[in-house]
């Protein structure tokens, strides 16, 4: 037989034999159709909830332009807006904050800051119509600069036919605004990562049950190291997950395009292509880290019922991981974020969020190596535990033997 005798190639080949069997068995089973349809149910529920929410928020929190001008100019501005609203779309909703007496001045910034946090007024229009001033966050003032100039020009007719120059006072710098938007991108990516991982990682929990129920575990254990069985099963499920992701991605994109557009997010700090690549890598590691843990836990379960019982705490664990990573996102650069990066299960979430906010790539290299090491250690530990508890191999786990295993030292003969 022409076979390689290198230990690594033998190990890798074993992994691929297990992985290809599992991958094929899942992909070509009827249940895979249900697996693909699975996300439709939450998407449907989210869609329903989102539709209701959008309708509510559309009425309640449409951004409004506050007006703080002299009374005559205020009336002229509102009349001009009404005249234009029939022919020009996307004119700002307005709200009279204060009618000033002639010659009276207003501190627009302090007026805006005093506005209640739930107030729909996000920017303030002040100053004379001939030279209006817009005060507010960068995004809003940029959006309303043109329409305000148009309305002011209409209000000034027929005395003036020129387009007045609008002075802009941005309360949040462009840089800060971008950072704020990137955090939204980071939050969205973390949420997507969590949803996908939650959907997929739990599936590996029942993966060893088939082998134990069919008694084929003996055949596998005699032929290949248990680590290879664990790795193979995880890789197979990762492959299935990526197939699922591809299908859902294509379908989702088609639906969004047909529905009129893709939700806009601020470009991540590392750029979209690198962010997508890192997203794929961190999804894989988030899945592998959680999956290896679940595979170990599921492997130790004796029956399907036990696996089902374990599913709920497993979901809770996933939620905790997500909450921790989300909390760390609000404390970037602080020890809590470092802790989230170092803790294996939250590391992919935190690093993906970091990719949205910080442009440095080097930390990602370190994180990927760290996460790969953690996956290897969890699988190695899981396989050892499986051999000792399920296969009844080796002496019972004691503190000394555990440390010998950890340090790679062998017991003297």
């Amino acid at each position, binding site marked *: *037989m022409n076979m390689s005798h290198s230990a690594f190639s033998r190990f890798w080949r074993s992994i691929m034999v297990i992985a290809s069997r599992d991958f094929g068995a899942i992909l070509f089973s009827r249940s895979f159709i249900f697996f693909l349809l699975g996300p439709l149910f939450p998407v449907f529920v989210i869609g329903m909830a989102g539709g209701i929410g959008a309708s509510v928020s559309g009425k309640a929190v449409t951004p409004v332009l506050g007006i703080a001008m002299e009374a005559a100019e205020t009336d002229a501005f509102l009349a001009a807006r009404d005249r234009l609203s029939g022919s020009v779309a996307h004119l700002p909703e307005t709200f009279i904050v204060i009618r000033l007496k002639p010659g009276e001045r207003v501190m627009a910034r302090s007026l805006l800051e005093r506005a209640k946090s739930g107030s729909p007024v996000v920017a303030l229009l002040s100053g004379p119509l001939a030279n209006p001033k817009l005060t507010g966050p960068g995004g809003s003032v940029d959006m309303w600069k043109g329409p305000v100039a148009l309305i002011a020009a209409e209000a000034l007719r027929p005395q003036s036919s020129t387009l007045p120059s609008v002075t802009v006072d941005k309360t949040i710098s462009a840089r800060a605004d971008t950072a704020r938007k990137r955090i939204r991108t980071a939050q969205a990516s973390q949420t997507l990562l969590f949803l996908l991982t939650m959907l997929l990682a739990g599936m590996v929990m029942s993966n060893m049950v088939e082998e134990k129920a069919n008694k084929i575990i003996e055949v596998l254990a*005699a032929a290949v190291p248990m680590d290879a069985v664990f790795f193979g099963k995880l890789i197979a499920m990762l492959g299935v997950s990526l197939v699922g992701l591809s299908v859902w991605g294509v379908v989702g994109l088609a639906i969004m395009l047909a529905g009129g557009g893709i939700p806009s997010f601020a470009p991540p700090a590392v750029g979209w292509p690198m962010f997508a690549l890192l997203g794929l890598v961190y999804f894989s590691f988030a899945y592998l880290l959680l999956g290896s843990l679940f595979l170990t836990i599921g492997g130790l379960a004796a029956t399907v019922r036990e696996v089902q019982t374990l599913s709920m705490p497993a979901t809770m664990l996933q939620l905790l991981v997500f909450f921790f990573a989300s909390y760390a996102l609000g404390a970037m650069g602080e020890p809590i974020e470092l802790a989230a990066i170092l803790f294996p299960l939250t590391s992919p979430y935190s690093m993906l969020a970091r990719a949205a906010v910080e442009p440095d790539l080097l930390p990602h290299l370190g994180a990927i190596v760290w996460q790969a090491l953690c996956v290897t250690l969890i699988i190695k530990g899981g396989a050892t535990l499986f051999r000792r508890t399920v296969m009844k191999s080796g*002496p019972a786990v004691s503190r000394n033997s555990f440390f010998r295993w950890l340090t790679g030292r062998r017991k003297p003969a």
Partner: protein
Amino acid sequence: MTKSPNPSEFAIASPAPDADTGPLAIEARDLVKRFDGTIAVDGVDISVPAGTIFGILGPNGAGKTTTLRMLLGIIDPDSGTRRVLGSDNPHAIAHRIGYLPEERGLYPAMKAVDAIAFVGALRGLPRDEGRRRGRELLEEYGFGHIADRQIRQMSKGQAQTVQLLATLVHKPDLIVLDEPFSGLDAISQGRLEKLIRGLAIDGTTVIFSTHVLSHAERLCERIAIIAGGKVPFHGLVSTARDRLPPQVHLETRNVDGPWRAALPPEAEPQLRSTGGALFDFSLTGEVEPLLTALIEGGAGIQALSIERAGLHDAFVAIAGEAAARALEQDAEGVAR
């Protein structure tokens, strides 16, 4: 009637390689395994010469499967050493080993030919080559018609045969079969015996466990008897049988006479209604002096047979003796 021999006659045969055994396929020394504090295998020594058929015999729960699982690296011994085909790590030479576990198992959705190829692939055989050889093996053993049938659609015997063929597909140098005859009908058992003999003729080492001694008696040159986790006998089948003296069955016209002195004291006569007597006893000395004494002493021999002890008798005697010895040791342990 089989007599239990004197314990001193049962010195454990040395498992060290004899001059005539040649290279060893398996060499295990002092294997010990405990499960939850209970000792399952207690200092087992086994040596299996390459190219032979070796049987591991023992009652259920004796430690046969645990021993095989340790030899194959499925579980690690608590202490002791093992060398399989010259390697301390059975997984490193997995491509040279075939294994049929006692608890049979294949993926139910797999077709027979794919199941064979999958087990071959686990042992390093390319999948396509495995399918080709799998089909050949199924044809050769008369199961070509189920090659594309799923395991779940097969009878238990068919599935078991598929798994057996899967252990051979990568042409291993060593085949380990754990209770291979259990669950098979008589015809399949005969077929399996033929298969095992054929493998040994081709130079493959076959080691199998069984508690059905007739298979071992027909197939094996060497055996190890395991009882209570220990190996009270290890060696040639003929040596095991020779541990018991030949059994004499004698029918005489006369019940008494000077010839009775040639018979051992425990040889009690069973009187026949038609006259004369029956004697069953172990032959402790030579045959010729006994015959001379019977003829010259006027016993009136009507029938005489002298039979070598069978493996079953030898096993019962050896395993029983070992159990008694273990009991004594337990008692000694308590006394200490």
